[in-house]
């Protein structure tokens, strides 16, 4: 027995190695010093020192989303743990597997308001999929392995393991992952075959079908994207996706309608509104997508595939709900479709596409360019054109720039697009880019940012410089919290209360102060050369792209409106929001 005994800190490291972890993101402090000491004495795990614990979690999210592996975070007790809360909530909302280790005061001090004590499991109970307080070293190995299992199985999510300092010193026996079987948690991955048959029947008999896919396809893995592509092409049906699902289906394909929802395309939202069969694969009927619920796809039969049973019938009544993992269910759907030699209704489909083409003809993403001022949409289009020959990963902050990125930067592959969808966390993009670049050292990683958002986790540029991560921060600088300004214009008669970005730093000098490169573009004529220079610069770059201050993000379904009540860019003048809509966010 004695031979297997290790300290709690050593158990933590050994468990991480046995779980295949090679990188963790963290920040030290008193309550995790023994783990930092154990890290110091080994070479299997690389520790990326961030500059703020929120950054550690977002970096781990970027790492996780671009690799499909769980992201691992190590922070100290008290303020270390509370600083991680935003990141954990973000990961919970977007179903990102994160294992976050927090230090805690020694067990005999818990509850005494000790220095840097906080009730971490209490605080994070609501923003994790599950959490544990480990009270002795002998249970540590089991909890570590259970934590990885819970974070990565079923609907993925963040978990927290709170480890008191005395437990890190205490000795206990180690057990490997193969010895740990979870007592209760057995998520269902195979869908009910009768339901799948029923769904295939509905799909085959549809006259006006549409696929509506989401982040679940990405989370399920690359196989799910492949199967989705095969099934969608086999049917010839149109497909749209949520913000989180971009890249699962190639944007260059002719069946692709673009993103749906509040800032989705005219064709995607109208197809949703008019469809007779809605095929939801791995999306969750979020309010950004549905708009007014009682007017959502009102004449459709709805199929919903989701690994989380609680997503089905939560916001929208479902006709055929299938609990299971997207890849498994798609595989069964394809098999049944083929074995029954199903064929879509050719004539109906041709009419449907004709209708869709007229919506597409509306060109809802178009915008007017100008000679003297850079349009934000144009900047993103140029960024795409000049980077598409590279392996490019995009992260974003939150605001108009995020929506413009989703609209104007096409994705061909899954796991190349990381954005904070559910929580809408300003400050996500830069640390996420750090995490992506760690996982993909040779790729081009760009954070499409706003000048306001970027200041929320700006400090992580220092992490990028330290670890020689050549991330590019592409700021669409409109000197406004543009999305807030847009809503104030629409909802509050243009009273721009505290949405002007005053006293901005000089981003070029800021970059230089951090030891990075700063580039500024102010005129459309300078844009291409400046973007090229950014891409060619070997280290981290802050690109200050001065854009039109008053451009609004269209199309837009205002809060409380239906999919077929969109505001389009060219007739947005004087648009308003209903009284009920004003109550919504």
């Amino acid at each position, binding site marked *: 027995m004695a031979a297997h005994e290790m300290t709690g800190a050593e158990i933590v490291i050994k468990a991480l190695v046995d779980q295949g972890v090679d990188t963790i993101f963290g920040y030290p402090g008193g309550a995790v010093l023994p783990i930092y000491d154990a890290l110091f004495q080994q070479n299997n795990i690389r520790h990326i020192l961030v500059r703020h614990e929120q950054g550690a979690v977002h970096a781990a999210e970027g790492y996780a989303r671009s690799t499909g592996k769980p992201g691992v975070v190590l922070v100290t007790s008290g303020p270390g743990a509370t600083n991680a809360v935003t990141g954990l909530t973000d990961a919970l909302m977007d179903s990102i597997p994160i294992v976050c280790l927090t230090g805690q005061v020694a067990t005999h001090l818990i509850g005494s308001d000790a220095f840097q004590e906080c009730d971490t499991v209490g605080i994070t*109970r*609501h923003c994790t999929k599950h959490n544990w307080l480990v009270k002795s070293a002998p249970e540590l190995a089991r909890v570590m392995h259970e934590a990885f299992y819970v974070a990565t199985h079923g609907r993925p999510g963040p978990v927290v393991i709170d480890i008191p300092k005395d437990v890190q010193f205490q000795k206990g026996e180690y057990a490997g992952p193969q010895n740990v079987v979870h007592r*209760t948690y057995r998520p269902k991955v195979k869908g009910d075959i009768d339901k799948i048959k029923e769904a295939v029947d509905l799909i085959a008999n549809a006259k006006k079908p549409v696929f509506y896919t989401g982040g679940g396809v990405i989370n399920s893995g690359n196989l799910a994207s492949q199967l989705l592509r095969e099934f969608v092409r086999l049917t010839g049906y149109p497909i749209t996706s949520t913000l989180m699902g971009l890249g699962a289906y190639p944007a260059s394909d002719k069946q692709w309608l673009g993103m749906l929802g509040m800032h989705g395309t005219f064709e995607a939202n109208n197809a949703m509104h008019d469809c007779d069969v809605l095929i939801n694969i791995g999306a969750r009927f979020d309010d950004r997508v549905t708009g007014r619920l*009682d007017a959502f796809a009102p004449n459709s039969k709805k199929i919903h595939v989701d690994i989380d*049973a*609680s997503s089905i019938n939560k916001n929208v009544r479902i006709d055929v709900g299938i609990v299971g993992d997207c890849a498994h269910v798609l595989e069964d759907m394809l098999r049944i479709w083929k074995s029954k030699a199903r064929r879509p209704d050719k004539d109906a489909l041709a009419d449907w596409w004709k209708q869709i083409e007229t919506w597409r003809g509306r060109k809802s993403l178009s915008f007017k360019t100008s000679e003297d001022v850079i349009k934000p949409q144009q900047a993103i289009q140029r960024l795409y054109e000049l980077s598409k020959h590279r392996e490019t990963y995009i992260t974003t902050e939150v605001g108009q720039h995020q929506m413009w990125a989703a609209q104007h930067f096409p994705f061909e592959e899954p796991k190349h697009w990381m954005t904070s969808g559910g929580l809408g966390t300003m400050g996500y993009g830069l640390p996420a880019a750090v995490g992506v670049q760690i996982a993909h050292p040779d790729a081009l990683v760009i954070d499409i940012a706003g000048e306001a958002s970027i200041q929320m986790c700006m400090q992580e540029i220092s992490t990028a410089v330290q670890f020689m991560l050549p991330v590019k921060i592409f700021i669409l600088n409109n000197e406004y919290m543009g999305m807030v300004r847009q809503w104030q214009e629409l909802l509050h008669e243009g009273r721009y209360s505290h949405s002007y970005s005053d006293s901005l730093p000089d981003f070029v000098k800021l970059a230089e102060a951090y030891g990075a490169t700063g580039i500024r573009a102010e005129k459309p004529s300078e844009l291409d050369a400046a973007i090229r220079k950014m891409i060619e610069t070997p280290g981290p770059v802050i690109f200050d792209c001065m854009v039109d201050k008053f451009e609004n993000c269209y199309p837009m379904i205002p809060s409380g409106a239906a999919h077929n009540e969109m505001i389009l860019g060219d007739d947005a003048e004087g648009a308003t929001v209903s009284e009920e809509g004003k109550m919504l966010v």
Partner: protein
Amino acid sequence: MSTDEKVERHTIAILVDNEAGVLARVVGLFSGRGYNIESLTVGEVDQAEHTSRITVVTAGTPMVIEQIKAQLDRLVPVHKVMDLTVETNSVEREMALVKVAGTGERRVEALRLSDAFRARVIDTTHTSFVFEVTGTSSKIDAFIGLMRPLGLVDVSRTGVVAIARGPEAM
């Protein structure tokens, strides 16, 4: 849609791993998502297996009740969730300790009524009784209602426990 539907009262049994914080998870789920708790009871039911059973009485539209069950089911330490109101024929009981103070006519009347409810006297002084009464929640409500004018001073209720009829386990 869901708002047009009628609100129903459901008794839900939840078998959980008896780990630290599990009750907080269940209660936090109800408060965090805005569901009702009309009654909640909890107790360990298998010491060797470390399992506890939580019984919750809640109210909501059918869609909300479905949501509550699905949300409970996805909590990691939950073994099983059972809706005793729809899935099976079940029996429910609640117990209350009811203290009534008074003398003379009122005291006699309290004792007489307690007999009709098959309540037991478990403590008595010259000026008070403590009754133990068991039954459905509505029976206990009725008993308390009758005691109110007769000198009701204190009530302690266990909340509802429930179990399915027939030979099967949960």
